[in-house]
C-alpha cells in the first residue's frame, strides 16, 4: 500500500499517511467534556465549549474529531494485535514534534479538527517516548497558546513525573488496557503488564482528584486532564466473552473513575501475526458492547445484570440489543405502567431511551398517558408496546408469548433472486 521510500526522503505527506494509518486502530476520538476555554484575550487559536464536534466522518462510520496520529510507528514492543509491533513489516516513519505542531495548527485554523490525539510507538525507552509526546503538547500550549483539545496517550512504563507533565498540558490522558484478561495480555501483548497498566491508571486518577480538589480551594491551581482518562479494549482477538469484557469494564469504571471505555473490534491488519484469529469478530459485537456500556452508565444496570442478558456462552445475542435481551429473560418485571412506574423501571423498558423517559415523566404530570401519547414521545411505539401499559392499553397476551423474541427482533432480510 505504501511506496517504500527511505525514511530520510519521506515527505510530510508520506509521513502523515503512514502515521495516521498506524493510529487508526485506536477507537477513541472524543473531544467532549473538558474545561471550557476560548482564545479571546490570548495569542493563538482554539476553544472547547463542552460539547465535542465531529468535523468529518470516514466511510467506516467513525467520527473524525481530532488529528489522530502517532509521533512514530517504530516500536520496541512486539504486541501481536498491533500493526506497529516490532516484527511487523509495515513502512516506518517519524515526525519531529515541530511537524506535528504545524500540522495541528494548520488543520485547526481551517476548522478541520478539534485538536490533537497523539500517541506513539515506544522508541528507545518509555521515558524518552513520553518526553517527546509531552514536548509536542508543550510547544502547542506554551509557544502557540493553543487552546483546543489535546489527548495524549500515556505509557504506563514511563516515570510518574513525566505522565504528570502530560496531564498538565492535555485535556485527556489515556492508557489502553488492550485485552480484558491477563491471559490474553500474556499471550498477545507479552511486553505489557496488567499490574503496571492499572498502577498507572490509579496514579492518574489520584492526580485528577487532587487537582480538582486544589482548584476548589485555589482558583489558579493548574488543571490536570480536565476531560479525565479513558481506555480501550480489543474485542475478539482473544477468547474473552462479552460477560468477561463487561465485568472488566465495570471494574475499570469503578476503580479508576474512567470517563470512557472504548471497545475496538479486532480488525485484520496488514502483516498480521500468525497468533491472531484471521477473521474479524462481527462489528455488531462491538456495537452490542457499547450498548451494554450505555446500560451500565445511563440506565442503572449493574454489570452482573447485563451479563445475565448474555446467552449460555457468555456472549450477548447479536440479533437483538442487550436491553431487549434482558427484558425477554426477565419478563416478570413487565409490563410497566408508564403512568405510575418509577424512572428506574421506565429506563428498563426496551425502546425507551433516557430522552423518552424524561419526556414521559414531564408529560404525565399534565395528563394520564394513552398509547397515542406514548407514540408521540418515543421513536417506535411498536417496540415499546409489549412492555408497557397505559390507560387504554395492556399487553395482555403479548408479554407472555413464547415467540416474542421473533416478533421484536429486526427482520432478517430475504435475499432476492439475482
Amino acid at each position: 500500500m505504501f511506496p517504500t521510500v527511505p525514511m530520510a526522503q519521506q515527505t510530510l505527506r508520506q509521513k502523515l499517511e503512514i502515521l495516521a494509518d498506524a493510529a487508526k486502530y485506536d477507537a477513541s476520538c472524543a473531544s467532549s467534556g473538558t474545561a471550557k476555554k476560548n482564545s479571546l484575550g490570548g495569542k493563538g487559536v482554539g476553544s472547547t465549549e463542552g460539547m465535542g464536534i465531529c468535523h468529518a466522518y470516514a466511510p467506516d462510520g467513525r467520527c473524525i474529531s481530532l488529528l489522530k496520529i502517532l509521533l512514530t510507528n517504530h516500536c520496541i514492543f512486539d504486541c501481536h494485535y498491533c500493526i506497529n509491533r516490532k516484527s511487523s513489516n509495515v513502512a516506518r516513519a517519524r515526525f519531529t514534534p515541530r511537524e506535528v505542531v504545524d500540522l495541528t495548527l494548520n488543520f485547526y485554523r481551517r476548522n478541520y479538527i478539534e485538536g490533537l490525539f497523539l500517541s506513539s510507538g515506544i522508541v528507545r525507552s518509555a521515558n524518552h517516548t513520553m518526553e517527546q509526546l509531552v514536548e509536542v503538547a508543550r510547544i502547542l500550549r506554551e509557544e502557540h497558546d493553543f487552546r483546543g483539545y489535546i489527548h495524549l496517550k500515556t505509557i504506563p512504563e514511563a516515570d510518574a513525573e513525566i505522565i504528570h507533565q502530560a496531564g498538565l498540558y492535555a485535556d485527556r490522558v489515556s492508557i489502553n488496557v488492550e485485552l480484558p484478561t491477563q491471559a490474553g495480555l500474556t499471550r498477545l501483548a507479552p511486553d505489557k503488564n496488567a499490574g503496571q497498566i492499572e498502577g498507572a491508571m490509579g496514579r492518574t486518577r489520584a492526580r485528577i482528584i487532587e487537582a480538582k480538589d486544589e482548584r476548589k480551594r485555589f482558583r489558579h491551581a493548574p488543571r490536570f486532564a480536565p476531560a479525565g482518562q479513558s481506555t480501550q479494549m480489543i474485542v475478539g482477538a482473544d477468547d474473552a466473552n462479552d460477560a468477561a469484557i463487561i465485568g472488566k469494564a465495570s471494574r475499570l469504571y469503578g476503580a479508576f473513575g474512567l470517563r470512557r471505555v472504548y471497545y475496538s473490534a479486532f480488525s485484520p491488519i496488514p502483516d498480521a501475526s500468525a497468533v491472531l484469529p484471521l477473521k474479524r469478530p462481527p462489528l455488531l459485537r462491538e456495537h452490542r458492547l457499547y450498548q451494554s456500556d450505555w446500560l451500565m452508565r445511563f440506565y442503572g444496570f449493574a454489570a452482573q445484570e447485563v451479563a445475565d442478558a448474555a446467552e449460555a456462552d457468555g456472549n450477548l445475542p447479536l440479533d437483538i440489543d442487550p436491553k431487549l435481551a434482558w427484558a425477554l429473560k426477565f419478563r416478570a418485571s413487565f409490563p410497566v405502567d408508564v403512568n405510575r412506574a418509577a424512572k428506574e423501571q421506565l429506563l428498563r423498558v426496551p425502546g425507551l431511551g433516557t430522552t423518552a423517559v424524561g419526556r414521559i415523566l414531564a408529560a404525565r404530570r399534565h395528563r394520564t398517558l394513552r398509547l397515542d401519547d406514548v407514540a408521540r414521545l418515543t421513536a417506535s411505539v411498536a417496540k415499546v408496546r409489549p412492555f408497557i401499559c397505559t390507560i387504554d392499553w395492556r399487553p395482555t397476551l403479548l408479554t407472555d408469548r413464547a415467540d416474542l423474541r421473533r416478533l421484536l427482533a429486526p427482520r432478517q432480510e430475504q435475499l432476492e433472486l439475482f
Partner: protein
Amino acid sequence: MSTMPYAAIGAHYAVHLPVPDDFTFWRERARGLVQCDVPPDRVSWIEPDGTGDLFASQGPFRGDKRLPVPPADAPPVRASQRFLTVARSAALHSDPARFGLLYQVLWRLQRNPRLIEDKADPQVRRLEELAKAVRRDAHKMHAFVRFREVADDDGTPHFVAWFEPDHHILRAEAGFFMRRFANMRWSILTPRGSIHWDGKAMREGPAARAEDAPGGDPVEDLWRSYYAAIFNPARLKVGAMLSEMPKKYWKNLPEAELIPQLIASAQAREAAMVAAGEREQRARSATLVEVAQGIAACRDCAIADCGTRAVAGEGPQGARLMIVGEQPGDQEDIAGRVFIGPAGQLLDEYLARAGIDRSAAYVTNAVKHFKFTWKGKRRLHQSPGAKEIDTCRWWLEAERAIVRPRIVLALGAGAARGLLGRTLSVTKARGTPIMLDDGAELWVTVHPSYLLRLDGEAREQQAALFAADLARVRERLGAD
C-alpha cells in the same frame, strides 16, 4: 387613524418582520398582542420576503398593519425559561409558520404556565422539533465550515469559508467562531448573508455566492491524505457515515470527493489484508499424527517452500517434559528426525549426564522446516525470523495441547519465542521458570549448537551453565 387603545373585535393583524432571525422583535410584538388579548388566529407573521401566514397577503383577511397598544393596566405576559430557550432556537428555523406557532404556544402558556412540559402536546412537540433542527444545523455548521487561506492586501492571512446553512443561524453562530478563532482574520460567506471578523470587531455583509470564496488551499491535500489514511477499510459502515454527514454537505467538504473511491476499494483492500496473512482455515489437530500430516502440507511461511521436509516432533504423548529446539538442521532434514545432528548428539550427552531420559520426553522444534542458504555445495543454517517463528507457533501450540507437558525446556531464544510470542534474553531468563498459560513451567536455556561454536574457557563456562540448567529441570521433574 389614531392608534387603537384596544384590539378591535374580530380585527386581523399582520406583523412584518424586518429580518428573518430577529427573536427580540417578535418577542416585543407578541407581548403586546397577548396583552391586547388578540388570539393566534387573528395574527399573521410575515417575513421580509413576504412569506408567512397563508392569509397574510390575500383574501378578505388581509391584516391591518397597525398593531393595538396594550392598556396600561394590562397584566404582564409570562413565559417559562424553557419556553424562551426553545423559542429562541425555533425562531431561527426556515419554516415560515414558526412565528405563528410560537405565538400560539405563548398564548396557551398564559392559561397553562407549565404547558411546555407536556411533551405529548402536538404544538409543543412541533416547537421542540423546530428547535432541534436548528440546533443540529448550528452543530453541523461548527463542524463542516472549511476555511481556505488567502492573503489580504496587507499580506495578513485571511481565512474564508463558504457554507450553506438550512436555517437562519449565521448571526447566532458568529460568536462560536469568534471565540474559537479570536486572533485570526476570517469570513464566513453564505447565501443568506456573510460575517467577517478582523481580530477585533464583527461585521455583517450581504448574501454571497460560492464563487466569492477562494477555490482551494494547498493544505487541503494534506487533509485529504489524512482522511484517506484514517479510514479503516476493514470496517465499512456507510450508513453510519451518511446519517451524520449527509450528502447535502459533501459539495463544500474537500475530503468528500474521496468517499466514493474509498468505499469502492474497501472490500478489495480488506480481502488483500486477509489474503496476505492467509493460512488455510484449518481445525486444530487433535493427534500427533495429524500434526505431522499438517506440517508436511503447511505452506504458511516461505521456509516451507525451499524443497525441505517438515520434521515432526518425537516422543510419547503425555510426556511430562517437552524439549523445544529452534529448527531442524541439515542432517535432521535429510533423516526427517529431530535432534540427530551434532547439536543433537551433544544434547543427548548432556541429558544423559543430567539423568534425563530423552526417550521419555517429547522433543520438537519451534520451526518445523530447515531454513538455510547455499554456500557452495553446503546448506548453511540460517536463523528463522520472528514472523516465521510466530507463524509456526500454531503447530507448537497444537503439540503442547496434545502432549500436555508439565515442564517445557526451551533451547535458545528462538524456541522461547515460539512458546511465549516474545523475544527474551536467554541470559536473563535462565535459571527461573516462567509460568505458561496452561500452568506448565517453562525453563529457558541456550541451544546446544551455541556450545559447539565456542571453545576454550568460554565453552567450559557455558557448558557448566547448560549442565546446571538441565540439572534444575531434572530436579523439577523429580519433584513433580
